[in-house]
């Protein structure tokens, strides 16, 4: 028995994703020579929309790709950017790898810990910020570098980092009003 054959393609109205994302997924699975190649992009886009990969999201993606849930989980645990638990609205990722370390990346990370009152992979009680110490993000010549969600910020100092966090905090405040 091949497990791949028993999966059912979902009806579009059964989707947990937005209509736009569901439509994108419908197209994505037809794009590659192999359906399964759409898996990693789908996991990323689903995570972007929901904030993390919930059980329901994983189940629907498994159905769409026509593989088992276990198979999806097996893949997603390999990739450091994919997560099954929610994070803060702004995920602050501070690079402390060599080029950043030489320009104060470690101190910047510790500064963020103090400022936000949280440690590596923790989230502030208001759900606004998460903090993560990350490996090289490809901005070494502009170190120390930080990524907030997908946005790059470089040549940071503790002072400019504070201003940046403040900016995100204000943006969130405005969006909430």
């Amino acid at each position, binding site marked *: 028995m091949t497990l791949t054959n028993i999966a059912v393609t979902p009806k579009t109205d059964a989707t947990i994703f937005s209509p736009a994302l569901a439509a994108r997924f419908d197209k994505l699975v037809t794009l590659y020579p192999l359906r399964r190649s*759409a898996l*990693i992009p789908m996991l*990323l886009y689903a995570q972007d929309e929901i904030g993390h990969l919930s059980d329901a999201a994983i189940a629907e993606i498994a159905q769409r790709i026509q593989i088992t849930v276990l198979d999806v989980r*097996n893949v997603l645990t390999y990739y450091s950017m994919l997560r099954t638990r929610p994070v803060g609205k702004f995920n602050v990722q501070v690079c402390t790898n060599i080029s950043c370390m030489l320009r104060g990346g470690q101190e910047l990370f510790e500064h963020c810990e103090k400022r936000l009152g949280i440690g590596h992979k923790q989230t502030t009680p208001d759900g606004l910020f998460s903090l993560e110490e990350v490996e090289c993000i490809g901005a070494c010549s502009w*170190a120390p570098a930080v990524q907030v969600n997908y946005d*790059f910020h470089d040549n940071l100092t503790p002072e400019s980092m504070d201003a940046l966090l403040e900016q995100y905090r204000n943006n969130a405040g405005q969006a909430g009003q």
Partner: protein
Amino acid sequence: MPTLVSHPEEVKIVSSRFGQGAAEIDRYIELGGYQSVRQAIEKGPEWIIAEMKASNLRGRGGAGFPTGMKWSFVPKQSEKPKYILVNGDESEPGTCKDHLIFLHDPHSVIEGCIIAGLAVGAKMGFIYLRGEYRYLLTIMEKAIADAYAIGFLGKGIFGSSFAFDIISQTGAGAYEVGEESALMESLEGKRGIPRIRPPFPAVVGLYGGPTVINNAETIASVPHVLRIGGEAYAKIGSERNGGTRLFCISGHAERNGVYELPMGYNLKKMIYEVAGGIRGGRKLKAVVPGGSSTPVLLPEEIDIGMDFDQVGKAGSMLGSGGVVVLDETVCMVEFALRTIKFYQHESCGWCIPCREGTDWLKKTLTRFHAGAGEARDIDNIRYLAENMMGRTFCPLGDAAAMPTIAFVKKFRQEFEDHLGGRPCPYAKHSINELVVA
């Protein structure tokens, strides 16, 4: 946005369109773009491969394999479709060059990819960016859509019978996937576990078909090679090392940035003249010449030409072009620890020497740096690293071991300075603050 730098010593080829708005297709065309693919269609595959071979262009990802030769390994006849895979999973610490290519000149990657397809008879190409480069994927996707809209992708490119499609996507955070066989696994929707070779990708690659895998900078160089001419391109560089290369200078140089210099350019000159020397006039302690996996060089070892052969002769590697400059304030034990921490984090766990080796190295170095080291640890670190060499499926094990061996060999005194419970002579921490794993 990353700052662009400039220096009169630079020879701007791959970076010639940086900062010129060439992410827009009209501007790219205005700046001479898509002329090379037109020429390639007229002159055909054999001409392309001959030019590529003459150019001495070697893989910019780090291995330095001659590109023309790589292309010529792809069988002419194949039952399965052939593919071009552009490796933009730039993840080697110290390296940020592809970042700029995707940001400023995405069409050069598209054009290079089409030319590679023409050369080997592939009809489909993939551009795979690292997961962190999502904003660059947006730029790349727009560039691809524009190229389709104008008829440079899809069926009948430039009125010929040649058809070519490109899909771009990102990864989701995994250094390991930068290795070509792991990259193919990832693109097939799997964990990025390396494949056993042979067979090599040129014969059995993506979806089982013959596949050319090239670094993004290599592919972006291809249109320039055809425009300049293979022989003329080769002359820009040094012997057997054609053209230019993007060097990412980071760390303690006065003017960090990505500079494009001819292959074989003197490393000392690169640091002291192009990058303005060491910040604040401090003393140089060491240079990591090609990304974190390349063995460290001492100040007296940097009077060398930066090409694959000369850096190799100096006992290190040209690698990915990431030149990391370390001044006298750096604790080399701490630096070695941070380097190994990365490889321990990224080891996929498939091969035991790499999984266990990186873990033990991290544990030992953490303890050592914290002042709880013993004299025999120093040789043990080296012994452990030496026994990882060549014992893993993919190069990650070597990438972790090589720099470690060099740190111990070249900075033994600094290791010894940490013995006897003494505080680290350089780091700002006191022993108590450091966590002993």
